[in-house]
Every structure is written in structure tokens, then in C-alpha cells.
């Protein structure tokens, strides 16, 4: 129930209609428009609402000191429609067994609701999820350096990375070179050596991101200490020759468990419908690091040298737990040692 402003601004949800299992939304409102942290990043996960629509059971008036507007006001300002009064538990069960489905949210006058036929037509004519080019919408157009840190420079291949991931790096004293998802990872930038690489989250099917996968295969890129998160986890695996598949039940929520090989377990935030096939790691030089205890799917891997570390879940939280944030510590530690 917490974390809706973060989820709605998460670029991974680009192009999707998002529904919530919790029956109430909007309880603590939304922070003021354009609010930024001290590094200049938006305090939410991106500059705008990323979803195309929202479906909830009920909304409430907001009450919180940090709120400047209600959820409904925010969505109206951003031109994103929403529906309330929907039995979202039923919808969840439908999505659970059918996977992500195409939907339509229509805004109409109360006395002239659209007919079912019109709605069906709208769905039929909408482009498929895989047909759209989300990268054009969520990835930056050109490279930029974030933060004034004199620390080592870390490149981020941005496929729609959450601001919290960038914040997690900046908070640990590194500078960030933010690159478009299909940009080459330079060995030097503006006179500074690139010391590490992070591949973060983003929308869409990982197999469609051929340019990024290609880039990850380049020897100079492979030589960098690398952290993969969510989509980045999948892209790194694909780049090394492993394969991905679509999950029967996607992992979405702030309450997922990952178990490490040594018996430790952590709660993480997750949002993925695809997973890396653990068996396909064989011969890639990568080894399983963490798994999901419920369906046994791969939740993280590393390479033998310890240079590459990847997690399917979100160590940065926002929304959700941050126990796995030690992954950032390890990654930045490696980067700093190298530098």
C-alpha cells in the first residue's frame, strides 16, 4: 500500500496500465511537482508518471505533511487516466493466470459511457507491448555526468533506470556517467577513466535490446566491475550466452524473498515478468548466487572473478525493503579498489 508515487514514476512500467492489490490508494498524497534531492535527481523515480493508466479499488483523500496534492490531482496534471471501483483482487487473479494482458482505460462523460464493443475495438487496435519502442521514451538522448564527486566514474547504461539506483551510487561517493541504453561504454570520458558499469531496470522484453547486449559483450566493457539490476540482470546474462524466459507468475511486489547459496535470505522489492534460466548459466562463466525459494528461479548471479554481480530484485527499494543494498556497497567497493 505504500510506494505508489515511486511505482507510478518507475520507467519499468512505461506503457503499462498498473493495478494495485491494496484496496486503498492515495492515502498520503503526492509530493510537490518537480521536487528534487540535493543531487538534482527527482525525489520520485523519474520526471513524470510513466504508466498509461491506473486501476484501483478505492482512493482516499490524502493526509501527510509531505503531500502537496492528491493522487487524482497529480494524475490529472500529468494527463494519466485512472479507474476506481474495480475489484482488483479479481483482476489480480486474472493477470496471475493469463499474464500481462492488454487493456484500455477510456475517459468519457458520465452520461455517454463507451460501449463494450468500442472498448474491444480500442484494445484490438492498440499496438502490442512488444511493438512499441519504450527506449525512445525512457532512455536519455545523450550522455551526461551526474554529481560533482571527484570519486571514480561509473557508467550507467540507462534503459529507464530508477532515480533511486542513481542516488544509491551518488550516495556512495562515485560520479555517474549516464549513457543512453544503446550508447557505447567509453573507456574514458571527459578525461576521466570509466571504472565501473551499472545496468539497471527498464521496460520491455530483454531479448529486444540487441544494441545493449552487444555493448555488454565488448571486451573492454566486460573488463569493468559490473552491477546488474532487474532488466540489467537479464541483459548481462543474455550477453554472456545465457537465456531468459517468461515466468508463469511474475514476481511483483515489495515482499519477495531471495535465498543465497549460504542459507541467508533477504526480502527484496521485485518487478519482473521474465527470468534468467538458471540452467543456461552453464558454460557462461557465471554462477548462480541467489534463487527464489518458491519457484526456484534465478534471483542473482556473479562471475567467477567476482567482477560481475547481478540481482533480479531491486536493492535500492523505493518502494520496498533495502536490505539488499549491500550489493551497491560491494560494487562501489570494487570500483574504488580498482581506481
Amino acid at each position, binding site marked *: 500500500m505504500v510506494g505508489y508515487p515511486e511505482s507510478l514514476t518507475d520507467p519499468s512500467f512505461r506503457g503499462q496500465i498498473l493495478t494495485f492489490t*491494496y484496496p486503498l490508494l492515495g492515502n498520503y498524497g503526492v509530493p510537490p511537482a518537480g521536487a528534487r534531492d540535493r543531487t538534482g535527481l527527482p525525489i520520485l523515480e523519474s520526471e513524470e508518471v510513466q504508466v498509461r493508466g491506473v486501476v484501483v479499488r478505492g482512493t482516499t*483523500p490524502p493526509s501527510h505533511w509531505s503531500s502537496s496534492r492528491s493522487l487524482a490531482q497529480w494524475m490529472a496534471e500529468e494527463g494519466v487516466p485512472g479507474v476506481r471501483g474495480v475489484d482488483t483482487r479479481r483482476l489480480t487473479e486474472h493477470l496471475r493466470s493469463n499474464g500481462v494482458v492488454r487493456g484500455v482505460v477510456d475517459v468519457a462523460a458520465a452520461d455517454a459511457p463507451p460501449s463494450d464493443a468500442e472498448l474491444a475495438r480500442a484494445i484490438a487496435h492498440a499496438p502490442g507491448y512488444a511493438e512499441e519502442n519504450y527506449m525512445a521514451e525512457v532512455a536519455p538522448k545523450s550522455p551526461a555526468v551526474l554529481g560533482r564527486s571527484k570519486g571514480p566514474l561509473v557508467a550507467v547504461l540507462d534503459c529507464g533506470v530508477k532515480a533511486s539506483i542513481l542516488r544509491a551510487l551518488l550516495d556512495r561517493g562515485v560520479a555517474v556517467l549516464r549513457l543512453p541504453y544503446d550508447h557505447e561504454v567509453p573507456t574514458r570520458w571527459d578525461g576521466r577513466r570509466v571504472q565501473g558499469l551499472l545496468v539497471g531496470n527498464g521496460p520491455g522484453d530483454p531479448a529486444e535490446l540487441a544494441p545493449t547486449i552487444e555493448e555488454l559483450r565488448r571486451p573492454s566493457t566486460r573488463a569493468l566491475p559490473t552491477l546488474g539490476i532487474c532488466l540489467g540482470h537479464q541483459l548481462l546474462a543474455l550477453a554472456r550466452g545465457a537465456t531468459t524466459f517468461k515466468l508463469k507468475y511474475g514476481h511483483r511486489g515489495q515482499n519477495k524473498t531471495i535465498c543465497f547459496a549460504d542459507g541467508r535470505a533477504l526480502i527484496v522489492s521485485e518487478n519482473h515478468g521474465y527470468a534468467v534460466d538458471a540452467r543456461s548459466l552453464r558454460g557462461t562463466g557465471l554462477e548462480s548466487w541467489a534463487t527464489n525459494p518458491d519457484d526456484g528461479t534465478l534471483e542473482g548471479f556473479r562471475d567467477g572473478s567476482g567482477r560481475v554481480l547481478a540481482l533480479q530484485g531491486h536493492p535500492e527499494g523505493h518502494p520496498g525493503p533495502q536490505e539488499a543494498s549491500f550489493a551497491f556497497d560491494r560494487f562501489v567497493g570494487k570500483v574504488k579498489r580498482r581506481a
Partner: protein
Amino acid sequence: MTVALPEKVLLLGSGALKIGEAGEFDYSGSQCLKALDEEGVYAVVVNPNIATLQTDPPRRGRVYFQPLTPEFVAPILAAERPEGVLLSFGGQTALNCGVRLSDRGDLARTKTRVLGTPLTGIRSTEDRAKFVRAMANARVPTLPSRAVYSYDEALAAAEELGFPVIVRVAYTLGGRGGGIARDRAELAEVVGRGLRASPVGQVLLERWVGAFKQLEYEVVRDARGNALTVCNMENVLAMRVHTGDNVVVAPSQTLTDAEYQMLRQAALRAAEEVGIVGECNIQFCLDPTSEEYYAIEINARLSRSSALASKATGYPLAYVAAKLALGYTLPELKNRITGVTTACFEPALDYVVVKLPRWDLDKFARADRRLGPSMKSVGEVMGIGASFPEALAKAVRMSDPRADLLPPAEVRAPREVLEDLAHPTPDVLRCALEALRAGVDPATVSRVSFIDRWFVDALSEIEATDRALAAGRGAPIPTELLRRAKELGFSDRAIGRASQRDEEEVRRGRLESGVRPRVRMIDTLAGEWPARTNYLYLTYRADADDVRPMPSGSVLVVGAGPYRIGSSVEFDWSTMNLVDGLKAEGVPGVALLNSNPETVSTDYDRSDRLYFEEITLERVRDIQDFESFGGVVTCVGSQLAQNLTPLLHMCGVPILGTASESIDTAEDRARFARLLERLAIPQPAWRAFRTVEEASAFADEVGYPVLVRPSYVLSGQAMRVIAGRADLGRFLSEAARVSPEHPVVITKFVEGADEVELDAISDGERVLVAGILEHVERAGVHSGDAIFCLPPRHTPEEVQQQLLSAAGRLARTLAIRGPFNVQFLVKDREYQIIELNLRASRSLPFLTKATGVPLLREAARAMLGRPITREGVAPLPPGRWGVKVPQFSFLQLAGSDPLLGVEMQSTGEVACFGPTFSDALVKALVATGVRLVPRRGTAFLSVGGPRLKEELLPVAERLRALGLKITATEDTGAFLAGRGLKGVRTLHKVSEPDRHPNVMEELDRGKVDLILNVPLSLTQEKFERMLEDEYVLRRRAVELGVPLFTSLEAFAAYVEGVAWLEEHPLTVDALYGTPEPGAPRGAPSQQIPVVPRRKRARARRRRRAT
């Protein structure tokens, strides 16, 4: 990983139910036993609480009904030699007992390991200084505070921290003895009380943060360090009201993700630092206008909150904690509710849960109604809905089916309402609604009440909808409005009242419009994973049912609702024993309905289907419409369930058990009297009245005293013994206790009679009598407050035969199918019947355990129309005596008068067993916290009236012979001296503080060890000055923990018990058990040094007084 399991462990329970420590620990203990049983571990249970399910005959283990004090547990440790002991499932009582066992070296001596959170961790949560240090290590801020041992230290600390300060007491339950001090005078009072209440003579002063949000996290952690939070909860009435008295919502509703995670991470760090293995509860306060927060406390054990969290989420915390204590890690455990996913996850809720306390403050004469840092509620309920208003409205009806959240149409002036709102009482939410209706803006309501605006806005929505319904009265209710009202939790009756319609008409109308609730499942995963569970609730904000109806012929058992005065864990025991009985009889499916999260019956895997719902006519009919049960059982869920019987019957719902007509005959005084006449069973003279004049004439005719009561009562509500005409007039006219619509029944009150009860099971032909129970006190003390003795000590055999015969005739005439209870008066070898209850009674668990006869299994047969398999009187094993003693919570209820009467006041009970009455009695008294009078201690006697004084004489002589010093009031002292008793010292009255020696002075100096105070008259209106005097004395005795008796017979029994102790060791034996895997070891009788030597006792008290 393989776990090296212990073969045998000791589990400490929590003893009698008291305010701050109630039936939730039967739930946690039972879950623990389930976990132990699964692992094949032999469990030795120590718990004197006779009414619990955890003390039923175990599948693998042994049960001791013994006090939970080191003196009694140490011999059990020595005899049983368990490998480990579990301290975290029996509340503060078990934890304190464990800490003391360790301090005394008993654990080390017997090589017993503490399983779960180690003692060092427990101590760091119990000792404030250690707690603050631990939290600092974990980078978790705590409120600046000072631990003090005297008033002077307290004053210095308060001035440093700045008034107001809050005073907390170390090692006590439910914030007992604590309070807020706004100035020096209040500081003196609260600190004085707190120092006396603290077993270590220490109180803690802290900055007062009453306006902060109050949040709790339930943390689970294994020995490997894997940890998670199962649930967080928000207290609607902010910090200023104790969480036990607060309205609690889960999950939190007004926190952002940043705040939620900030507190969650702090909770995990704190649990790590303390070294929790199992479960703990962490409480935080959070500034409502910033991210400033502090940890308030950690309960390193299962708690009321953890029981609530288990029910709110479906995550079985106690069960998991027990497995973790045995050495398992979280990822190794399965999520019991889904059966396929791991227990290492955080549940996702797709509903809102609201916990509402149940207070019974009106039952306690003079009790302070204001809510604050000391807990006063006796139970709680949990409403589940798709919105806060829906869950809240359900909870309100769950706490009392007649209760109503909605404000009256005529409201008071805003200023008056706001004044009330500023000082919360149990009516605080209704008061907030009244303020809104009076036109106060929501922002002001929020500011004055400290209730977050979010909750106030929800209340506004309820209020506005009520007005909308009222505005359209006469015209049909638009379906849209009807649906909105139902989604906000309005009952059909509430809609009817607002729109001036009959409840039935509203129901019919809404069913015709297709507005009906849907059955929803609690699956811990918010539907994200396919899980088939049987844990259900109903909501109007849903389009489809999650389950199909149960197989045809299934049965619904209606539970007992919230723990309250008069209905407590014993009815949960009856409910579950009947469920088990029905299952054993092969009923295709047994569903359960209950609203109380502190129960075993709401553990979802104890029945085939659990409806966590309201126990109201409307809701039972909704469920019946969906399920079409073959029968509904209403006779095991106390009077709450029983009251539904005639209503359900009228609606065509099949009732399983005794027919509704028979119940009506037993409960309608006039019909019952006619029946008794026909059966030639004697009864006291009685009549029903509609005016004061008629009543008065009747009382004159039969003679005073008389007993005045309304019909259909539970626990003596509004009953009163009246001594004279003036009192009768006053009692009846005040609060309009008599009116043409509400007649009162007046019964001749027989003075000096004994009270005897009989519990039995009948199939309409045969009768199985569970036992005859004799009250130690004379008639006039409510059955729930009386000490029971089994077998009877005084009732002549021939009278017992008459009672059995009367019960048999009643059973056959009324065609009773199931349990029933009859109450009799016995005087001069004559008996009279005073009450017949055609339902399971409070004493059924005591009799079942004492006799070993599975009474409710027989009841299940009878209710299904099958013949019972036994007849006659269930035999008590030869040489066994059982004594049941009530537990009172007067200390927790500031101001309450501990005088016993016809209104029930106890919050719980214990029973102990032994080879003699005295052996069992002494143990049971100790188990309820009654101190034994030290050798050469001092008794203070104050008895009203010549007859009682006469009866006191032999008791006083006995005391003297035991070497006790005797002090008395002028009157009583003069009488005793006059009869030749030597060395009686007279103490002057409370109201004469200048005359010395004065009783109050002596009491405060710790020079009185035992008090008998039997007021002259049974009415409180007479002799007000003198009675006030005695009240002050009784109250002080409660506050100082000095044993106090207000009945001469109980006092005499106590003295007899003390005399017995002089000559005999107390026995420590298990009541029952299964053979052990290894060599059997029995616990022999032990000499228990429970009588403190005088010197030690006094020194301890002196320390406290400073």
C-alpha cells in the same frame, strides 16, 4: 540443514487472564504446542489457567496446573529435566518467571537451555538502561529518559526533561502503574504508585510524545540472522493511548514508503542487536510533521500485538517462532497458509484490518473511564474490510452487537463535544463523529483528538452518508446510496434507523437490488499466487466470491466474540472442543464464526473454514445465505451466540442442539417459573414489574433484601441486591431501570445460603452430569467471581441427589440436546433453583479437566441427535480435589472498588488440584497472585453486623493460634475482645487520620499483611461515610498488593489453607500426560517454601516505600 531437536521442553503459560495479559497467550501457546508436536518433541506445560486449550490433555506431553512462580516451577524442572525451556509464549508472566529462574540458578542447576531469544537479549529489552544502550548500538533513536528509584530523583529528572513527562514502570504488564505527570503534584502521585508497582522499585521518566503517531512492527528472526517484518500497525489514537486500549489499523495507513521503510529497517536492526530468535514486537513513535522517530519498547516475546498481526495477515507468528526456537531457519519453513511458498516472506494484505478494544469499565464501580498510558480494556475484536470505514464499523458491532458508531441525531454544543474529545474515553470515535455532526471542521477534530486527519476524513464520510440516508427518508433508497452505505460498513439496522425503516425491510430491499456481501479469502499473498485457504471474511467492495459453499450437511459453530467480563477464554475452549467433537462425529464440514483475534478458534487451521466476522444476526444470515449450512450451533459461544438463537430460528436457520423454544422457556422468567412449578422444583419468590410502586409493594411482602435484575442477562449486568425500600426506589428510578417496555424481575434474596452449580450434557433422554460445584462464598457473590470447590465440601449427599434429580427432570422436559448449567441455592438441607442456562457454561473446562471425561464430545453427539455414550455423574478420580479461583484486575483499573457482589468483575481464573481442599486452594490462590501471610504477620479484620461477627470469632481464634497478630476496627475489635480473644489491637478509621494507630498508616508502612473487610450492608447507598472509608481501605490494599478478602467464607478457607501449610508440603504433580519416549519420571510432592519469613517480607516492602 538438519536440526538437532530437543527431546523434551518445558513451556510456561501466562496463568489467569488479566488486563494486559489475556487469551492471546492461549493462542500463542497452542500454536507452539502444534509446532512441537509436529517435531515429535515432548512438551511439559505449566499453566494454572484451567480454561485454556493449551492445558487440554496433550498429544505428547504433560500438563501441570501450578502457579507460574520460580518456587513452583523449579521443582518441576528438577523432576522433569527438560533440555530446553520456552519463555516467549506465556506473556510477561512466563518471561518474568524465566528471568527469576535464571537469577536463582535453577536453569543452570538443571542444565536447562532457554530456547529462542537468549536471556541476555530478553534482559536488554526489559531493563531500560540496557535497552537504550542496545538501541544506540543499532543506530535506533530512543526518547531521552531517566531511570529513577525515588521521588527526589524523579523530580530532578522531570525538570531536566521538561514537563509533561511520562512515567513507565519496569517489568509490568499493560503499562501497569504508569502515568503522565504534568506538574510536581502529579509527579509525586504517579511516581509513588509506579515505585510500589515495580518489582524492582524502579520507574522510568520520559519526554511525553502523546501527539506522535504510534507504530508497531512485528519482526521474525532466525538464529542465522535472517529477519523480516510480518506486519506493521498504526494506532489511530496516537501515542497518548496505550496500544492495548488503542484503535489499531493494519497495515499503517498514513505512512509513506520512506517512513515505512525507515521504521522497518530500524526494527530489523534492533532485533539483530537484541539477538531475537523467534518473534518480537517493536513499538515506535513518529512525529506527524517530520521524519523524527524513536523506538519506545521491544517485547522480546509473543504478545497481544503478535496475535493480532497473525490474524491480520494469516502469518502464524507463534508457530513460526516455535520452529525457529527449535533451530530451524526461515527459508526452511513453509508458509502454512499457502502450503507451497516459504515462511520467509512478508505477507501482502489486500484488505484493511481494524482492531477495537473491548472495555467493560461500566462493570467496575468508580473506575476511571479515561484512556491513557495504562491499559484498561479486557478484550478486543478485529474487523476486516476493503476500506477503513467498513472494517471499523464491523469492529464496532463485533465489540458489542448493540453498539453504534453513529452519532445521535441531536448533538451537543461543539464546545462540549470538543471538551470530551480532548480526554479520550472508550467513546472517543463516537465523540469525534458527534463533533463532525455538530459542525466542527475535520481539521479541528483532528487537532483536538490527535487522530490523524486521514481517519477523521473517513469518519466524515460515514457521517455524511448517514445524513444522506436520513435526508431521503420515506422515498426508496437509491441503489447507489445503499451500496455506498454498505461499503462503508452500515448495518441494515443502521440504514433502517437513518431512513426510518424496519431492518428486515432494508434487508429485503437490498437483496432485491442485488446488494450483497462477497466472501473473500485471506491468503497472505493478495491473490498474487494461487493459494487455497479457508480463512475468510465478507466485504461489499467485491464482485465475486473466492470460494464455493461447503459440502451439504456442514455445520457452523458460532464463537463467543471478544473477551469481556463474563465471557472469556473458557468459551473459546468450549467452541473448539465442540468443533473437534463434531469433526470426530463425522460432520462433513465444520465452519467457525468468531471476531476475536486473541483466540485459538480463529486459528484458521483449527476448523474446516473460518469466518472472521461479526456475530450478528445480519452477518450470520449473510453467511447462511451463501453456505446453506445443515445446522448452526449457538450454545458454546457464551450468551452472545445464545442470544442469536431465537432470531435465527425465526429466520428459518436450523439450530443444532436444544430447540429455541426450550431456550426461551429457560430465559423467560415467567415461563420458567411455571415450568418449575409443574415439575415441583422449588424456586425463590419472584415477580416481574413495570412500575416502582408495584415493585416496592412486592419487596415489602417477601421482605428485604431482594435481588433486582432485568431478564436476559449475562454476568449479572445491572443486577443489584437491595436492602431497603428507599434504596429500591432510588435504584429503579435512576437510569430508568424500570419501564413498561423493560420490566425488572425482583427475587427474594436468600441470606446465608450456599450456592451450588451443576453442569451436564443431555441428549433429551439421558443425562451426563459433569459434576456438582460448590461455591466457597455464600450466595451473593457472582458465580464468575466465586471460588469453586470440587467435590462439594458441605452439600449433604441427599441434597446432591435432589439436585441431580431436578436436573434430570429439566433435561427431559425441555428436551435438552447439549450442554446445560443449573445454579441452586442450598440452605438448611433445602434447595431452590435460581438459574438454568441451556448452553456451555464457564465451568465446563474445569469439570472436563478434573474428571477427564470429554464432555463436549458427548455434547456433539447429542446435538447431532445421537445418543450420548455415558450417563450419571462423571467420576472424579479418588483423592482428587480441585479448586477454581478467580483472577481480578483491580490494580489496572484505577479507582475501581474490589468489593465483590452480584455483578461479575473477575477477568480470569485458575484451578489447581491436590489431595486436599487446602492444598489445591493455596496453590490456586498463589497462582492468582495472592500473597501468603507471613508467619507472625498481622491481619486486619473489619466485619459488619452481629451475625458475621459471630461467625468471624472462630476464624480469628484460628489466626491467633497460628501466631498471627490481630488488628481490627473499633467495632470488630471490641466484639472479639469481648469474646475473650487476647491481644486484639484496635486501629482507627481512614476518615480519622489524626487518631493513632490508624489503619491507613499501618497499611502504608507495610505492617498489615492480610485484610478481611466485609461491609455491613450489601447495598452501597446506606451509610455512605462508613462505606467510603472502607472503599479507601480496600483500594489501598489492592494498590499495595496486600491480600484482601471481602467474604468471610473465602477468608476462612484461606486461613484454613495457611494452617494446612504449617503441617504439610504442597504437592506439585502433573494432572495428566502421555508416556515419555524415555524412562518415565514423575514429579514427587515437594516442600515449597512459599511462606516468606517475616523479616524478609518487611525488608522488601521498606525498600519499595523509599
